[in-house]
């Protein structure tokens, strides 16, 4: 395969990943690494470098649209970014130390978990008393609902903070956005409204990824000629995806995408564990 064809095929494959990622709400980043390692036999270090860059592009590219919706909470996001960026520092450092096979296995497990989490999506009701720490940190807000504004206050802030640290570490280790874990931390642990969790998570993904990007760059994980078609493809796909409003199909699409992710996850675990791929 020559250089031009390789770039063209990568561009369109990445566009497909970005499109599916945006339509299903899972984000395209999570399939870029398996796509590159399994289908194109790219070393996992170059793959996570390309993936991380694409994650920043989709997060920042979609931000304007999310702001318009008015659900994201800037204080919740900024406070939790302390945890995700610190986690990302550790995760990115680990990629330079941990054997390739181990990264592959962890990646596979995270894929399986993301598929499971995306289908579950059960929102817990707000039952506990407001967390005093959340009041002091002003982790609260109003969210538009059918019958006017609904007020919310974050709960179990330390648990959410800890989970966010984990999300950051996984993001740095695997070059992904870790959107699924971020949403779990805000939705399940901190009991924030689902819309607030997903849009705030999108905002946080770019900042978290930027915290690993420096180390990736200086470790030579970003191969310009490989990143170029991947980043442009994912960005194009996600921008197109966010414009297509196919609300009725989302459930089916999510099922299909979850199945694809499960297959990729198993493939990555098997390949890495047998020491052949990854």
């Amino acid at each position, binding site marked *: 395969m020559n*250089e031009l064809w390789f770039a063209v095929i990568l561009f369109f494959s990445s566009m497909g990943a970005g499109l599916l990622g945006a339509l299903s709400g899972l984000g395209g980043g999570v399939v870029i690494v398996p796509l590159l390692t399994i289908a194109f036999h790219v070393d996992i270090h170059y793959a996570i470098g390309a993936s991380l860059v694409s994650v920043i592009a989709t997060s920042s590219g979609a931000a304007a649209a999310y702001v318009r919706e008015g659900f994201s909470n800037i204080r919740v996001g900024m406070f939790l970014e302390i945890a995700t960026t610190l986690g990302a520092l550790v995760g990115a450092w680990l990629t330079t130390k941990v054997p390739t096979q181990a990264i592959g296995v962890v990646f596979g497990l995270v894929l399986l978990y993301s598929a499971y989490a995306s289908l579950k999506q059960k929102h817990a009701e707000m039952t506990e008393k407001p967390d005093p720490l959340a009041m002091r940190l002003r982790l609260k807000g109003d969210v538009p609902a059918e019958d006017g504004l609904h007020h919310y206050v974050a709960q179990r802030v330390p648990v959410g903070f800890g989970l966010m640290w984990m999300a950051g570490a996984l993001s740095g280790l695997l070059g992904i956005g870790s959107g699924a874990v971020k949403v779990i931390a805000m939705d399940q642990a901190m009991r924030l409204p689902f819309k607030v969790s997903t849009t705030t998570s999108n905002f946080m993904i770019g900042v978290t990824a930027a915290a690993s990007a420096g180390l990736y760059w200086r470790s030579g994980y970003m191969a310009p000629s*490989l990143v170029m078609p991947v980043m442009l493809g994912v960005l194009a796909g996600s921008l197109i995806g966010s414009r297509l409003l196919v609300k009725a199909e989302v459930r089916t699409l999510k099922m299909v995408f979850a199945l694809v992710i499960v297959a990729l996850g198993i493939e990555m675990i098997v390949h890495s564990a047998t020491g052949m791929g990854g």
Partner: protein
Amino acid sequence: MTWNDKRIETWVGVMLRTGVMLAAAVVLAGGVLYLVQNRGPRPDYEHFHGEPAHLMSLSGIEHGVATGDARSIIMLGLLLLIATPVARVVMCVVGFLFERDKLYVAVSSLVLVILLYSLFFHR
């Protein structure tokens, strides 16, 4: 959410989108140049061997861009992209300063320090 928070977020959203589009345009320009110059077989990505040293430093990329090196131009675009979330945090620091929210000026400054550390010093 107060009206002021909303205003910070609107600026931030516009800035992020502009940053991404600018970065994508630079990457695309470098990519087209790269594909015009390189017609050979695909490079070896199957084995990790890092990147040349000149692509891993700011001064090296600066020099590469000045001499029209395609890969340096792509890297410049990627660095612009990485800079957009950092700029977002800077804008939040400024926004919270306007709101006189000392706690969140401190919180967003801490995030900024972590980011700058990771970009330039983390090993």
